[in-house]
């Protein structure tokens, strides 16, 4: 066994950090877009109108039974077909993540909305609010506050999931490390480094979300 050469990390730091930056960009798009679409789908899952409820339920159940990799491939094929021209790895990865994570966010949102008592809804209606305003000003803000710990946990999951964009060749953090590895043959050092960086970020985020949850428990 030859010795380790950790110098490979500082030597390629700029390239690796560029990959990490792409990972953050993708995670940001996936979390914000997924949450936004997830709120809509989550509300649709609670609708009493059948043509809204059934498609939303079908969407959530299908998405949750497929591996993320497959969904990434789906949009890798579909996005250029729908757009009519090649759109690039990053764009199709963004679409895939927003659509896929929306299904998971939708379930969190649905549970959050269901945790708000129906009295709130009735009170809002009797004050003269319509459905849209009730949701917009009364239910969603309270529900979101209840959902914060679950949403943070899911955000950590999404952040980890972005590593799967590797499969379509997107130069995110993991792909950057594997490119450096192909040139430098330093697998142990590189993958240990990637693992450590992911660990620090995710550990900090999940500790933060646990702290929030504990605080809510006392309130």
């Amino acid at each position, binding site marked *: *066994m030859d010795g380790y050469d950790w110098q490979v990390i500082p030597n390629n730091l700029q390239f690796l950090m560029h990959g990490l930056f792409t990972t953050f960009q993708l995670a940001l798009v996936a979390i914000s877009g997924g949450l936004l679409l997830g709120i809509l789908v989550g509300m649709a899952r609670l609708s009493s109108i059948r043509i809204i409820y059934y498609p939303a339920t079908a969407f959530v159940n*299908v998405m*949750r*039974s*497929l*591996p*993320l*990799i*497959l969904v990434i*491939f*789906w949009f890798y*094929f*579909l996005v*250029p*077909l*729908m757009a*009519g*021209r090649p759109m690039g790895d990053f764009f199709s990865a963004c679409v895939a993540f927003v659509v896929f994570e929306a299904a998971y966010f939708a379930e969190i949102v649905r549970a959050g909305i269901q945790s708000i008592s129906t009295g709130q809804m009735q009170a809002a209606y009797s004050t003269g609010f319509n459905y849209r305003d009730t949701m917009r000003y009364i239910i969603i803000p309270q529900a979101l506050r209840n959902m914060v710990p679950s949403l943070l946990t899911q955000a*950590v999951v999404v952040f*980890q*999931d972005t*590593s*799967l964009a*590797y*499969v379509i060749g997107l130069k995110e953090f*993991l792909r950057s490390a*594997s490119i450096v*590895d192909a040139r430098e043959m330093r*697998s*142990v050092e*590189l*993958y*240990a480094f*990637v*693992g450590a960086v*992911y*660990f620090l970020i*995710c*550990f900090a985020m*999940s500790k933060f979300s646990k702290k929030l949850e504990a605080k809510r428990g006392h309130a």
Partner: protein
Amino acid sequence: MLSYNFNWSIIWTAPYGQWMLEGLWVTIRLGLICWFIALALGIIIGTFRVTPFRPLRVFGAVYTEIFRDIPLLVQLFFWYFAAPSILPKSIEMWLYRGLPNSEFWIVVVGLSIYTSSRIAEHIRAGMQSISQDQYHAALSTGFTHFQTYRYIIIPYAVRIMMPPLTAECLTVFKNTALAMTVGVLETTFMSQQIEAYTFQGIEATTAASLIYMGISLSVVLIMGFVERRLAVPGLITRAGGR
């Protein structure tokens, strides 16, 4: 829209139809092996986390935090590309040259450990939800700590944990798709190989999607059956129907 010529027969014509079936078989084997190893490991680690013995608790906590907070794909790459070179040269050679299907077994290691850390969290939560009186009653009846866990706590906890375990079982089968990145010829790998040979990506990916949906449905049905068989009448019921 760009033009795309559908040719659905690609899914069942030779040799592509057979590729998909071979992929399905690998997915099922990989999923089942990892599920049972992860379940056993997860129960052990989860139990560690609630024992009165501090070093075991610390070990359990470190184990779950490390394997839960690193993406599965990064872990697989570590096990596949980096870990063998840490081992003695002879074992490394055996892994790469001697062991047939070594990538399959390396994924078994990675996916089982990753899943066990998630299962351990569910087990811990389940055991903590069991009233302290059960422990005291068991201990005062003369059970040892081991017997208390083996005969009283774990059988209860596993029942309470059935719904999250069902979700975890679904996740294992979905996560087997990541094995394609290290060259295991499972369902997703096969579908992408058909795409590479025929350019019929939509058909091949549809076939793979249907396979995963079928697997998910089967898991839900089987776990539902197990849950009904294990249920203790009047004692523990699932909160709310699904």
